[in-house]
């Protein structure tokens, strides 16, 4: 699919992560060709990327505005709990999902208002939200995992290529990418992250842009939460602790500077995929968990270091 215009030979930001994914995949495939190349393995990796990838779509928007959202993991857990709780109380799955997504978007609207209108630091606001939402999830679940009849939601990430979750993820990625690249709102998102004062000067209301960005991103975290529930089949208030860091890592590997003003949806999704490939490759090769953590961490730092070297040229 070529959405790109023939606007010049400039290398896109996601090329680096793409090469990295291909190279790492090739290495693992060479090491364990009998298992790593199986279609089933590809599908498993795709499924395992879904949650981080959907979150990364939202986080990319937030990071482009120069913000950060640390509450992603807690919100995913809260969403699993809300959906499970609704299902347990007899709601049909569509209603349960709709309510959970509405809750997620509402959370985002509150965060967006605090960050936009009240000009509070996103780090602080979402740090607080992280704990508040985690507590809310535990309270709603009465400090238990909520067992529920998933009523078909578990098929969202079924084990074949027709799994709706995969296609929903792809569709959302395209939508968000188009929104950022081709719409007026998308341009305003970049403008607010590049130079908020300049955006204000041009009549753009940064508070409104941020409100929308945080609402949309939290909505996406909610979608990721529904996918998570599809995997877990229980509402788990202790789920996804530290997920936000994986998500931020994916976005950063995808070439977005935390200072804002830049970022790539495709890069972020590839960043998420890269981490899954490493994780899966580690299992296939029988590598102990700690090596996998070291490698993932090193790749994050490396990606940023290379980006720095690239941009730092000629600047001080």
């Amino acid at each position, binding site marked *: 699919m070529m959405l790109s215009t*023939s606007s010049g030979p400039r290398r896109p930001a996601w090329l680096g992560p793409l090469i990295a994914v291909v190279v790492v995949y090739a290495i693992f495939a060479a090491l364990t060709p009998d298992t790593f190349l199986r279609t089933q393995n590809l599908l498993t990796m795709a499924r395992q990327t879904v949650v981080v990838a959907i979150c990364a779509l939202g986080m990319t928007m937030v990071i482009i505005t120069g913000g950060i959202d640390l509450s992603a993991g807690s919100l995913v857990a809260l969403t699993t709990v809300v959906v499970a709780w609704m299902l347990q109380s007899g709601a049909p799955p569509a209603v349960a999902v709709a309510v959970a997504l509405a809750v997620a978007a509402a959370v985002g609207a509150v965060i967006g208002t605090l960050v936009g209108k009240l000009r509070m630091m996103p780090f602080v606001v979402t740090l607080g939200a992280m704990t508040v939402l985690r507590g809310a999830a535990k309270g709603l679940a009465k400090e238990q995992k909520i067992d529920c009849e998933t009523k078909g939601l578990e098929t969202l990430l079924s084990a074949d290529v027709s799994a709706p979750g995969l296609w929903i993820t792809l569709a959302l990625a395209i939508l968000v990418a188009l929104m950022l690249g081709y719409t*007026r709102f998308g341009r305003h998102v970049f403008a607010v992250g*590049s130079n908020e004062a300049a955006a204000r000067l041009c009549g753009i209301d940064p508070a409104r842009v941020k409100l929308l960005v945080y609402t949309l991103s939290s909505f996406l975290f909610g979608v990721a939460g529904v996918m998570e529930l599809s995997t877990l089949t229980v509402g788990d208030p202790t789920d996804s602790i530290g997920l936000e860091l994986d998500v931020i890592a994916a976005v950063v590997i995808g070439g977005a500077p935390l200072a804002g003003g830049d970022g790539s949806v495709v890069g972020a999704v590839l960043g998420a995929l890269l981490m899954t490939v490493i994780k899966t490759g580690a299992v296939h090769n029988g590598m102990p968990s700690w090596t996998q953590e070291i490698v993932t961490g090193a790749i994050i730092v490396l990606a940023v270091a290379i980006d720095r070297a690239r941009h730092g040229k000629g600047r001080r």
Partner: protein
Amino acid sequence: MSAAADTPVLELSGIEKSFGAVSVLRGVDLCVRRGEVHALLGENGAGKSTLMRILLGAERADKGSMMLCGRPYAPDGPGDARVAGVVMVPQERTLCPDLTVLENVVLGLEPTAAGFVRRREARAIAERALGLVTEVGRRIPLDVRAKHLGVADQQLVEIARALAQGGAADEHGRKGMAARVLILDEPTSSLGHDDAARLFTRVHALKAAGLSIILVTHFLGDVRAHADRYTVLRDGKVRGEGDPKTTPAERIVTEMLGRELSDSRDVTHVGGYRGTEPIDEAGAEVLLEVDALGGRERPRKASFVLRRGEVLGIAGLVGSGRTELLRLIAGLDDKAHGTVKVHARKGVGLLSEDRGGEGLMLRRSIADNVTLSRRGPFVWKPKEILAEGGRWIQELAVKAAGPWQEVGELSGGNQQKVQIARLLREDYDVLLVDEPTRGIDVASKAQVLSLVRELARKGKGIVLVSSQLDELISTCDTIAILRRGELGPPIPAAEWTEEKLLLEVSS
């Protein structure tokens, strides 16, 4: 002057420097004597900055030699230069706003015992340094945070810091010489007339104390009034030197520009814009009515009426509330009282004085910057945005590789054009133009000002704020004085002369 005063402190000969294929300095000789103010003149890109960076050790010359007090001088970094007594006050402010004056002055050279700052000694250092830059009987308080000082005082603190730096021991414990050469880079660009004059009295005092001062500046007036000698750089070569007091201004300008004075500069001394279509006071449509407008601090009271086709100049010292007035009108800050009535259908646009901080997204492309707008189609293809950017590059003759080039990579004048292009694209009826010529070269200045005139001719209403009085007189229809937050009545520009304006503004 005694014979000792004539011995050169600093002698540069045959300095050459190129970056890649671009040759920036092509054999520069410079001689700075003890106790003199030596002005270094030249347009943007003439090589002044590079030469100063070499002096400070931030760059190494490809060829040539430097002598400091008769000894070879080859600094290997700013630390070396500092130890040798060569220090600089850069153009942009570098104070830490939340540290006190004392902490700022001794920053990096705090005397310590076992890691703890020896407070009394630090205070002594700061007092000594500040004593050099303030008049007798006037003190800058040491324990006030830097951000609470006025711009002029901040400038003095910067100089004090530079002086304290010179001669301080470096991180290897080498004890250095006291400051001998002080480089001031555009020291008055952010100062009003009064403050600039005060600054120069201090410069003269430092000179009398035996310090050599290199003054890098665009202001020919300052040079003629305060410098003992000047050197003009153009295209990496020395094109003229001499005593600015005896050299005619026209000659210096010719040396800088490499051509005869253009007409646009001549206008400055004639006074008053003489348009072909005089404004019909009663007839032209009123675009903007400002009545008793006041902000939280400044301005206190401003009233005026702006008509279609009019350029209203606002003259005032730094700190008189010029920028604040424009921001209030544009609705960027909250007003405390008064009214702003905009009758213009297409609204009010502001050209910010702070290009990098507020006006432009430096890390994004020209096309992105030009087309940044609240309005615009819901879906807009990148290709079309580029085309739009390209169109404006042509329109305003922006010197750029293409619409995809990052704005941060452009020169000041071209950045300003990008900012103007955005305003033109929005097609505002009223333009509030704040210091449009700050930090851009002479040729761009003339272009920007004639553009302002052209826009007025096409029916825009323009409010122009500038520290350059000659610009105001040559460009505006009427000029109002903003003094301590209060705006005077607009008076036709033809009735002003530079001297009169200066007198009014600074009285």
